[in-house]
């Protein structure tokens, strides 16, 4: 696939100029760049909904609702909550996998959340710049077509690593119900070699959920803030796929 394809027949905007010239002259015609391809956007929103469902149902599994009245045979409250949790978990797992596969065929922005270029000095310099920007020490933001370096770091740890951790521990816990001969246990049973007592796996799964709550709050806040402050589209980009630079 090609990098940063412009949706219109207009010439590809000179991105380096935009980044370097952020404070300078008004760019003519508000350049837009196609950043997030359709599969990336679909994965994003499916994952977002799954994670929301998983958080709510997961919390209710750990801390169940007040007791329901009536016969046990007439109610299935925990059953439905657990079903929703397991279903959303498997959807998340499938779309997470799909997202990994897309990183191989998609544009280079689709690979951004799967690695941190730790060896590049320039990258860390720019991370520092972003930290200074968020600490109100920089007056002007730098513009990036994809994720800024700090965002890339946050996406890699906060999303890719945490969600992978949740999927692995989640399937390990799920395998306790499906049994020792299930494919879930064959694939993920090794988790219990690390924590022999499944009580500990539960604890880590809870902590992972709260870590994701933190990631989601920062993620949403940063998206809204940058949309306003960096004068580039962020939120609508995840719907249309295009990033517009408003300077």
């Amino acid at each position, binding site marked *: 696939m090609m990098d940063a394809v412009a949706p219109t027949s207009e010439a590809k905007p000179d991105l380096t100029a935009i980044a370097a010239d952020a404070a300078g002259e008004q760019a003519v015609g508000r350049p837009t760049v196609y950043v997030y391809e359709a599969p990336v956007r679909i994965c994003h929103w499916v994952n977002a909904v799954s994670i929301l469902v998983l958080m709510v149902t997961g919390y209710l599994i750990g801390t169940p609702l007040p007791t329901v009245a009536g016969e046990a045979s007439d*109610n299935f409250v925990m059953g439905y909550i657990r079903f929703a949790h397991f279903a959303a978990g498997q959807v998340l797992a499938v779309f997470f996998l799909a997202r990994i596969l897309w990183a191989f065929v998609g544009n280079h922005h689709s690979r951004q959340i799967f690695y941190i270029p730790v060896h590049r000095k320039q990258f860390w310099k720019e991370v520092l710049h972003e930290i200074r920007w968020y600490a109100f020490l920089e007056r002007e933001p730098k513009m990036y077509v994809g994720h800024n370096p700090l965002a890339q770091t946050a996406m890699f740890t906060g999303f890719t690593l945490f969600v992978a951790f949740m999927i692995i521990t989640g399937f390990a816990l799920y395998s306790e119900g499906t049994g020792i001969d299930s494919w879930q246990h064959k694939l993920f049973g090794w988790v219990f070699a690390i924590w022999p007592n499944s*009580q500990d796996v539960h604890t880590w799964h809870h902590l992972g959920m709260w870590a994701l709550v933190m990631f989601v709050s*920062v993620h949403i806040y940063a998206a809204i803030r940058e949309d306003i402050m960096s004068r580039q589209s962020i939120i609508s980009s995840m719907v249309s796929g295009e990033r517009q630079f408003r300077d």
Partner: protein
Amino acid sequence: MGAATETFYSVIRRQGITRRSFHKFCSLTATSLGLGPLAASRIANALETRPRVPVIWMHGLECTCCSESFIRSAHPLVKDAVLSMISLDYDDTIMAAAGHQAEAILEETRAKYKGQYVLAVEGNPPLNEGGMFCIDGGKPFVEKLKVMAEDAMAIIAWGACASWGCVQAAKPNPTQATPIDKVITNKPIIKVPGCPPIAEVMTGVVTFITTFGKLPELDRQGRPKMFYSQRIHDKCYRRPHFDAGQFVEEWDDEAARKGYCLYKMGCKGPTTYNACSTVRWNGGVSFPIQSGHGCIGCSEDGFWDKGSFYDRLTNIKQFGIEKNADQIGMAAAGAVGAAVAAHAAVTAVKRLASKREDAKQDH
């Protein structure tokens, strides 16, 4: 002793047990092991023809609750049959011989049945101070264990102590009590955890080894699959109340009287692998949950160090204070939320200020 060439069958016939009772025992055992209909005759055949397996039963740092449980086994038969089935050559707690006489048996068994006897270990060796916290026959228990394990066919780790460490290995574990599989690494080890393990599970494991001359299939953690492949929760008779969302909210409430699920009272059934909810205790009379108390997870690794028996979530001590994952998570998420709000506020103020500045410059 010395009777090891005898078969189980000849021993029990001599004790006046009829052939009919013997076959009843074989069928019951086959059933409790979850084997097919043909297994009963295979068990009968094995017990009639195979020499009894010599068993050395040793006691390390323990409370003898495993032995207490073991001698109450109802199926297979009662203790007479079980003690005849194997050739229990050494068990310092219940044997008649004592002192040098008793210790001589160990040497004799090692020499005579090299690589053929089963070493059953109740309790575990403490390793601190050169093993001085458990002296057995004038020597640290860990030395005795290593010597006897050297020539054993296999090792049975009875109970939570031998399998995981149990209470003597609970933090801070001053004696450095260590489970068997961390001390003996070159022998097959069957873990039969529980504090104590269920009597029928213990005799079931012994019967399997006697009958088939091999170890039962073990799970990833070295426990026999036939008894430890499912959680208490999976086969709990209160499970329908869990799925329905009907919980005991506090002791002695209406729900407790109705026998609802004890999940909210900290029942560890959902994280505990054992056969309590199917085999039950005292000849199938009851088990903790049936008696109205949650499972405490006694067959799980480090169950003493997981906080209160009455909390669903484990306390995490790494944070200095005793908080569970949800309390810590909520506090951290709250802090992040507050930070986000503060950051947003500062951003708004800054933006306003810089706009005014820009406006001033424009004029």
